């Protein structure tokens, strides 16, 4: 039996990797991939606690997180294509129109 804290630690490591990826990468596609990493980290937590408490609600919430992830990818990639069309680049440093 693996203690629940191992799963929380794994999830925290993956989540922080995603946060650092959002902060240090300049390619918008990699930033979206890092957001996927963070969503997966939360899903690992949901499933681990669902198993720990013998409650199936955690897996239902993984299902909803998956729906949101799919929607986010569709809209995010459409935004990336629109951005690429306007500047022929997907470097985040190029897009500072709304920077104060």
């Amino acid at each position, binding site marked *: 039996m*693996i203690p629940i804290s191992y799963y929380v630690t794994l999830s925290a490591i993956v989540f922080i990797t995603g946060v650092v990826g959002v902060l240090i990468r300049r390619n918008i596609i990699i930033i979206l991939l890092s957001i996927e990493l963070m969503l997966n980290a939360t899903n690992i937590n949901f499933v681990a606690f669902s198993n720990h408490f013998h*409650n199936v609600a955690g897996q239902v919430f993984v299902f909803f997180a998956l729906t949101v992830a799919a929607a986010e990818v569709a809209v995010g990639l459409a935004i990336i294509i629109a951005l690429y069309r306007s500047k022929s680049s997907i470097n985040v440093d190029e897009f500072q129109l709304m920077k104060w």
Partner: protein
Amino acid sequence: MAQLFFFYFAGIIVLTSILVVALRNPVYSALSLLIMFFHVAGLYVTLHAEFVAAVQIIVYAGAILVLYLFVVMLLNLKHEDRYHAQFPVGALLGVTILTEVVLLLLQQHGDPGTPVAPPDTVPPAAAIGNTEAIGEALYSTYVFPFEVASLILLVAMIGAIVLAKRDLFDVNRKA
């Protein structure tokens, strides 16, 4: 045996998630994310969540990753040479949060982790399958969030078409 599986899956998940962030070429990043998704699905199987594992492979590895690879190859990117200028700040933040989490978990680890839920609330998981249990919860307790999720998918579909279509609103002006 269970520990062996956990440490194998956890090791590969951590390694590939670091590779996603560290690799220069977006195609390699997407492929290492694919490996990570498969190992997360394996972790779900060891946690007795077979339905979620199958959905993870079908939706994440089958649909989302293909969409990413499609866009990466459509845009035909040259790989970037260096990280963002705020790389030291990001790395420092990551190390700080990680240290904080590890300290918190070590503090928690001192007392033996007892399951909070009393054992008498355990549903008859052996009599009813994982998929059936999820279906019953999804269509009884969580039926309103389920409908909202379908609305989110509809909004995402329309939004993606509106954003990616080149001149959706210029048709009347040109004609």
